[in-house]
């Protein structure tokens, strides 16, 4: 409706009017100076603060990164040292275990030798004992049988002869005198 009115000789927005132009320029400059006086410095200061904070944060981040890298390097060094130390300990433990194993084997071999020697000695002793008992039993049986035979064979005359032989032997044994 308004477009129709303008075309029909009403208000033309594109038409340059000097008064409006001046006032518009004054208003613009007023606002501009007001902004430049009061707002822009604040904005500038805010931006500078912002930039400083960002720089500080970047710097802090860099510092943190460097510190982290340093910590990481230190950690890696420690891990490496620990690994080396662990490796040494494992070697030591392995050597100690090997030594203990060798000692145990040597002790077991020694014990085994002792047991075998003892068993051999016991066996030899047992053998000697059994042989001794057998010899003793054999001697006992032999003399018992001999005694029985002699007892049967002895006559009154042989008894008499034994007694007389004894008397003769006693006569000869003056050396037995105290």
């Amino acid at each position: 409706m308004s477009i129709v009115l303008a075309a029909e000789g009403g208000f033309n927005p594109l038409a340059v009017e000097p008064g409006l132009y001046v006032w518009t320029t004054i208003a613009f400059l007023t606002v501009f100076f007001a902004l430049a006086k009061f707002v822009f410095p604040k904005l500038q200061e805010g931006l500078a603060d912002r930039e400083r904070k960002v720089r500080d944060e970047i710097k802090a981040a860099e510092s943190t990164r460097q510190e982290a890298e340093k910590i990481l390097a230190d950690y890696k060094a420690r891990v490496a040292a620990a690994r080396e130390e662990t490796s040494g300990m494992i070697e030591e433990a392995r050597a100690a275990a090997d030594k203990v194993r060798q000692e145990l084997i040597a002790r077991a071999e020694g014990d085994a030798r002792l047991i075998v020697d003892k068993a051999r000695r016991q066996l030899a002793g047992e053998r000697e004992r059994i042989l001794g008992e057998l010899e003793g039993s054999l001697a006992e049986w032999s003399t018992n049988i001999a005694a029985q035979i002699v007892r049967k064979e002895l006559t009154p005359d042989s008894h008499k002869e034994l007694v007389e032989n004894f008397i003769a032997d006693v006569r000869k044994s003056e050396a037995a005198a105290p």
Partner: protein
Amino acid sequence: MSDPTGQGVKGYARALYEIAQVEGDVARVSDELFRVARAVESNHELRRALTDIAIPFAGKEQLLQDLLGKQASPHTLNAIRFVISQGKARELVEIADALSHITAAETNKQVAEVRAAVPLSTEQKVALAQALNQATGYNVEIKAIVDPSVIGGVIAKVGDVVIDGTVRGKLEQLKQHLGT
């Protein structure tokens, strides 16, 4: 009660000797008691009968009378009764041996305990006594014991000296030789 020092045994033997001396029968009592001791020593039943406390004294007395009444002198029987009545039946053998030694010592003699498988004749005893006198230097009194375990021959013990001429002794030597 035990008598480790043998003082009790010697005391009883000395008492029996004194009694026998008063009775004037020392040699016979000593000899018979020695023989009874050998019989007690070798006969387990007799030893048990004399030492068994369950058998009353009268029973033991009757047993002695039955065994020795006709052979031994009354003095010997009285001596044995005395020992048993004193509760010393277990020491009868030791007392008899001690009496033999006292008797021999009182007559300056040494007891020769002679064991043979068969009884020795009087001639053999005399010859053996002479031989032992000569060999040991003692004036020995033969106490002969018949001991079948010697098998044959004679073993004589005079004090600490032992002269073994028995078949058993020779067999023992043989056994030792075979056993080693």
